[in-house]
């Protein structure tokens, strides 16, 4: 059982002074095993704070991040899940599911976490999950002004992931829960097997034909010899 905290778009100190106090009191060290952050922290102090929650921190680069060494995308394996991470300003149109699904296929991940739109979203898509944790500070974005602060906590256990969504609405923390089960895809197995089968039968048919031809030819030769 692994708890993964996903958050992003804090925009501290440009658009928000700090994380909401209610969030801060909930986020205590010791419970969370991994933190993934989509980017736009924007300063090093926030990075340090997140490190204090959990030492295993993964950050991708947002367009406002001061630190330039964050990668554009990152993938990590947690339990039996592959998790992809990207800020999302690179993917246009912003927040478009199909574009995100493309990235998901590119990175070959089960769970894709992106940000940038400052709006919480979670889709089950093509046997995977696409999650946008929203903005943890409720910072405004170029798309929208009224943003509720939100972040996501994923409880990964075996083939099952439970996504807890924490959203601050009118000063109250609202929690939502989304269950998701990874399925071992059976059709992939058949895909692997079927071309093999066909080629084998083809090959078999081919050799059979050749054999028949040879037999006929030999018979014909024998017959012609007898005639002569």
């Amino acid at each position, binding site marked *: 059982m692994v708890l993964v905290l996903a958050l992003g778009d804090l925009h501290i100190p440009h658009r928000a002074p700090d994380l909401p106090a209610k969030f801060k009191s*909930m986020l*205590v060290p010791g*419970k969370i095993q991994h933190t993934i952050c989509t980017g736009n922290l924007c300063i090093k102090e926030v990075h340090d704070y997140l490190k204090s929650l959990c030492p295993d921190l993964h950050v991708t680069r947002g367009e406002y991040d001061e630190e330039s060494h964050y990668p554009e995308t990152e993938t990590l394996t947690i339990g039996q899940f592959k998790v992809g991470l990207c800020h999302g300003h690179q993917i246009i149109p912003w927040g478009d599911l199909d574009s995100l699904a493309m990235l998901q296929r590119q990175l070959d991940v089960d769970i894709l976490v992106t940000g940038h739109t400052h709006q919480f979203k979670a889709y089950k898509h093509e046997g995977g999950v696409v999650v946008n944790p929203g903005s943890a500070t409720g910072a405004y974005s170029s798309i929208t002004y009224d943003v509720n602060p939100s972040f996501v906590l994923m*409880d990964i256990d075996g083939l099952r992931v*439970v996504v*807890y969504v*924490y959203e601050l609405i009118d000063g109250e923390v609202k929690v939502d829960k989304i269950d998701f089960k990874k399925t071992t895809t059976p059709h992939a197995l058949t895909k692997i097997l079927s071309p093999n089968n066909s080629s084998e039968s083809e090959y078999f048919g081919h050799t059979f034909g050749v054999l028949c031809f040879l037999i006929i030819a030999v018979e014909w030769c024998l017959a012609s010899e007898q005639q002569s």
Partner: protein
Amino acid sequence: MSPAPIGAPLPEPSLPPRKRFSDLRSVRWRIDLGILPSSPSASIEDLRRVTADSRRRYASLRRRLLIDPHLPKDGSRSPDIAMDNPLSQNPDSTWGRFFRNAELDRMVNQDLTRLYPEDDSYLQSPSCQAMLRRILLLWCLRRPEYGYRQGMHELLAPLVYVLHADLDHLSQVQKLYENCFKDEFDGISFSESDLVSNSGFTKITNWDTVTDKDSDFHESTLTVSSLDDLDPNARDIFLLSDAYGAEGELGVVLSERFIEHDAYCMFDGLMNGAHGVVAMADFFSPSPAIGSSTGLPPIIEASSALYHLLSIVDSSLHSHLVELGVEPQYFALRWLRVLFGREFSLDDLLVIWDELFSFPNGTCIDNDAEYNFKILSSPRGAFIAAMAVSVLLHLRSSLLATEHATSCLQRLLNFPKNVDINKLIEKARSLQVLALDSNVSSSSSPRSFNRNKLVIGRDYSLPTGSASPKTPLYPLPDSYWEEKWRVLHKAEPLLKGNNDHTVSGRTIKKALVQRFGLSRTESDPSPTKPGSEKKVSRSSVRRRLLDDLSRDMNLEADHGKSECEEVPGIANNKESVSVEEDAAQDFPEEPADKNTIGRTSDCMAEEACLSGENSSVFSTATSPHSMGNDHDNDSEKSSVTSNSFVGDNDEEMIHGEECCNHCDDNQPVQDPETTSSTTIKPETDVSLKQVAVSREQRPLSGKFQWFWKFGRGSGEGNVEKGGHEDLQRSPAAGNVNKDVLGSSASDGCCNSCGVGKKKDLGEKKVMGTLKNLGQSMLENIQVIEAVFQQDRGQPGSQENLTNNILGGKGQVTAMTALKELRKISNILCEM
């Protein structure tokens, strides 16, 4: 195949419960711990039923307390997701409890990974570790008032180990009586007609077929008639492990599957004491037990009970420990909490626990009767205390030899591994009777009761113990001093014998000294000689020294005071003479340096005497009894010495410098020497049993101060003229310096010895200080010898040969001083 048939019926009332499952330790322990019925009339069926019940209880407990946050509780999902989420602050939420359990789990795991890492691979196997973790976790969750404390896992581990070992035993027996244990039920039930079987166990197989829960009566009769052929132990094992007995699979008393359940029950029984007096859980709790009269935490009370028992059995050891300020809980905490699990190996521990558990835990004192210690009121608790005391008595001699609380505790906490466990238990058994008696009798007779109270008060109100050594709280028996004498004398040969091993370096040095003396007369200064010769000379020296010592001791014992006062004078004379002689001998050998050396050696000889006197001022000043007359005289002389220091030119400065060097060298040497002297305590410090630590410290520190002063004073002389350091003369000067040290030490000690003698012979205080002086002299000797050792390392090449000779000279003179020192210190110790 099976031994002689035994005609007794199965539920054998004549068998005492102890003997019942003699080779099934786990079953016996379970009976002793109150998990299985203890009455001898309880049949195997009863045992199985009780076992099954306890297992059911554990299973339900496990289901209830071990939390998986992913499983919805009772099918009905809690709708309040705002409360039941991983970040919930609510401690009652599933996740909150889950995280608390995880925390506990981590704590337990830390200890479990270090559990018997070398002894047994089974306890370290992952499955077993997980099991231990679950058991501990459940117990802690069940008893949140105790929580997990370090040490609980060590109580649990032997229980699990025993269960595991019995399963091994079971499989062995199964192999032996294969026919009997073969599970033929399924095959035979359909073809009873060809139930031929070549063995005499037809009836057993028959019994197997009949065995059913419905036919209890039939079963028992058949069992009796057929299983008589087996020897009773094997029969018990068979019945205990039969899957078709009462309660079916769940009732199999020895079962691999239910080790966890059984271990939990045993652990719970051990920790709670099964409504008895000794509940191990109390030992882990910091708050006083309910209804305790002392208001102390149970573990403290138990350890004071231990001291109480010790004071009855061996008052001298008790008073020694009390005076050192060794509180019983310092070591008893560890002993009692894990029931000696740390002191003995696992196999020995099982034997101890066998004995321990075999005593009933119920109180043997009426409720209205008053008793001192709760732990002593039950036979089992009394045995625990008795066992601890017997361990203490086992260490008795080495404990009595200690003079610090730390070294004492060191010995207590590093219990030797190769101990005859049976002897300890034997002793503990006899002590247990005493403990039980004392606890009862102390309540009945008011006089002894008061005495006990005093003991307690002393233990706790005066933790240092040495604060009131004169107050007659303890009427020491007269035999005590006699005993001390005896111990002292016994230790004497021990000292001699051990010196050969531990301080062989010392003897080598002596041999070298002798050799140098010889080589000078032969004028053959070759530094290396065959080892065999060395050995011979060494041993001869050794023997001579010992003879000398013993003769002297006898002499001193006879003649006493006057003789003692004469000795130092002789020693002094001899010494100075020898120095001068050596100097004279050196003249022809060293024409180049002869003038200077002659002068220095003369100076040294003079100085040796003078500063010897001088230093005696210091030592007497530091010793509590200083004589005014001596002081005046010596101060005059010291001024003379200082004059000679000033009056002399470069040589003196160089000498001072060398002195300084050597003194500086001395400092680092001293420390290891003193520490080593503490490690050789059993041999050397036997005489110091009764001396309080504080008194011991004073002369020691005084001595060190003196050393420092010496070093500094001589160091000041050469501050201005640092630069020309004569390497060739360094050993000589150093050795002379040692002379000074040696002679001064002997003088000082002799003086104070005389002083002490004059003062009061009978007074024990003075005796203590005298012993201390002897002790410090011994250390002095060690210091000097350490300097020798340093010197030995330096020379070696041809050009330093002359120095070797000089060194030899110095060593010889120092050796005489050393011998005197030894004699005197032995005399002192004798007193």
